[in-house]
């Protein structure tokens, strides 16, 4: 009898702790979103979306170039990372031997754990330094390095969720292994793969540290992959630290735009993964 009531108390305690944890998480999200939305909405205007940066102290201006820059960088990062991540994931799930899988998985795990500032320094050392220029390309490459393990892991996991009977069905029809993977397994895992890509996009669209060493920033707008490029997180970082009121306000508006972007992606991911479960 005694240990039964002890178990009851333990259950109650765990339930309490769990609820507390969940509650804190929700409060943090609400506070942060509320704060950013409240501030951002106050300062966001058409000029912010369409205008370019103005010299310090002047009124007006916006982050048009940085918004475009972030879209370009995220696109660039995705173009590099999606195929590599996809092939890595497909290899891990379909073609690797136990040994090669453990090696490749170890490598992607390490890559996933490397702090993004280190990735930035690395991209600086192997791309920016030799080319003697900060560049959109080096920034895209740095973001791709961060995104690859995300895409690889989710691709692998969702491909593994496709039942083996599908592969057998395809092989038994005389379909080659790679054709079965492309035409049967990948479509079966597509919702999961897309989810992974979007998680990766959400992850890199807010990265700041790697951009400090690669993108540098560029107030005059996009001027080629070989030239410095502006980006939202970078500009938010600079403006928020500046002593100028206008810039600080624009940092809030920028944070708002970035959060909305990530929010849209997260909602899309949720929607997609719900569809997958059905």
């Amino acid at each position, binding site marked *: 009898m005694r240990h039964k009531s002890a178990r009851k108390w333990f259950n109650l305690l765990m339930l309490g702790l769990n609820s507390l944890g969940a509650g804190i998480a929700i409060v943090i999200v609400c506070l942060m979103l509320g704060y950013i939305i409240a501030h951002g909405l106050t300062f966001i205007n058409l000029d912010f979306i369409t205008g370019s940066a103005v010299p310090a102290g002047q009124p007006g201006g916006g982050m048009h170039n940085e918004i475009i820059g972030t879209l370009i960088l995220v696109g660039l990062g995705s173009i590099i990372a999606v195929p590599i991540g996809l092939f890595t994931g497909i290899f891990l799930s379909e073609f690797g031997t136990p040994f090669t899988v453990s090696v490749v998985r170890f490598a992607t795990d390490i890559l996933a754990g490397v702090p993004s500032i280190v990735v930035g320094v690395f991209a600086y050392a192997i791309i920016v330094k030799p080319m003697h220029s900060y560049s959109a390309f080096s920034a895209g490459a740095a973001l791709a390095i961060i995104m690859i393990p995300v895409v690889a892991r989710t691709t692998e996991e969702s491909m593994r969720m496709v*039942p083996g*009977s*599908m592969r*057998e*069905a*395809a*092989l*038994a*029809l*005389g*379909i*080659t292994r790679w*054709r*079965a993977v492309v*035409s*049967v397994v990948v*479509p*079966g895992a*597509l919702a999961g793969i897309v989810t992974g890509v979007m998680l990766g996009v959400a992850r890199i669209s807010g990265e700041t540290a790697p951009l400090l060493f690669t993108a540098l920033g560029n107030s005059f707008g996009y001027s080629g992959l070989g030239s410095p490029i502006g980006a939202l997180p970078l500009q938010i970082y600079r403006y928020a630290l500046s002593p100028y009121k206008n810039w600080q306000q624009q940092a809030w508006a920028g944070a708002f735009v970035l959060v909305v972007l990530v929010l849209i992606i997260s909602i899309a991911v949720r929607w997609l993964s719900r569809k997958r479960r059905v």
Partner: protein
Amino acid sequence: MDTTKQTETTGSRSFSGNKGYILKAENLRAFYGAFLAVKDVNLDIKPKSITAIIGPSGCGKSTLIRCFNRMHEVTHGARISGKVLLDGEDIYTPGIDPVSIRTRIGMVFQKPNPFPTMSVLENVVAGRRLTSVLSKRTEMEEIAEKFLRQAALWDEVKDKLKQSGASLSGGQQQRLCIARALAVEPEVILMDEPCSALDPIATLKIEDLMRGLAKDYTIVIVTHNMQQAGRVSDMTAFMMMGDDRAGGLIEFGRTDQIFTNPKDKRTEDYITGRFG
């Protein structure tokens, strides 16, 4: 194809074709790593016949038929020794592509496994579409109709061709899988307990279908259901696990003979339900 010259009586059909068999196993052994799962099987399968493979579960029936279309080696570490002759040629001859063998020897699995991402129509033509060059859309529809009719499924799905293959009932899904296997136009169709996941009515439909298909195709069916073997097959092979845990072929003969007058004591015990 000439479908009139053969009589329909179970176990007494006359067989044509080269040397009287289309598929032949010679001293076939199947391994999973070091484990010998099937040992020394010698078996002749006559064209356009239905051969049932029966035996207690775990005796190697699935393993054996998976050797017939080179699906056995898909399992990591699995291998065979011995020969499997298809039209007189060993399908394990070095240099022969297992993929080409599987277009000649189709397979239907225990659990219906239509591709859930494809429509009913796409499922039927999947083998054709993914093994060769793409055909025209209209051609696809003709092919799909032809084989859905052969699989006795057309009337039930002709208004559902665009729906997912997974939306059909279990029995329909299994007939869809049969249509999908037929569409590759194989010579032999292997069926591994195709009815074990189905209700009795769906089971009877598939058995009827099999009798019809045997006019054009050679069918090998694994079943744990002896009544089913008795109902559909011309020939029956009885397998059992030996003391060394390796499954072997105990007796092979005409179905009526195996069921009424088995030569081996173990066959008799199994048939009469004394074990297994």
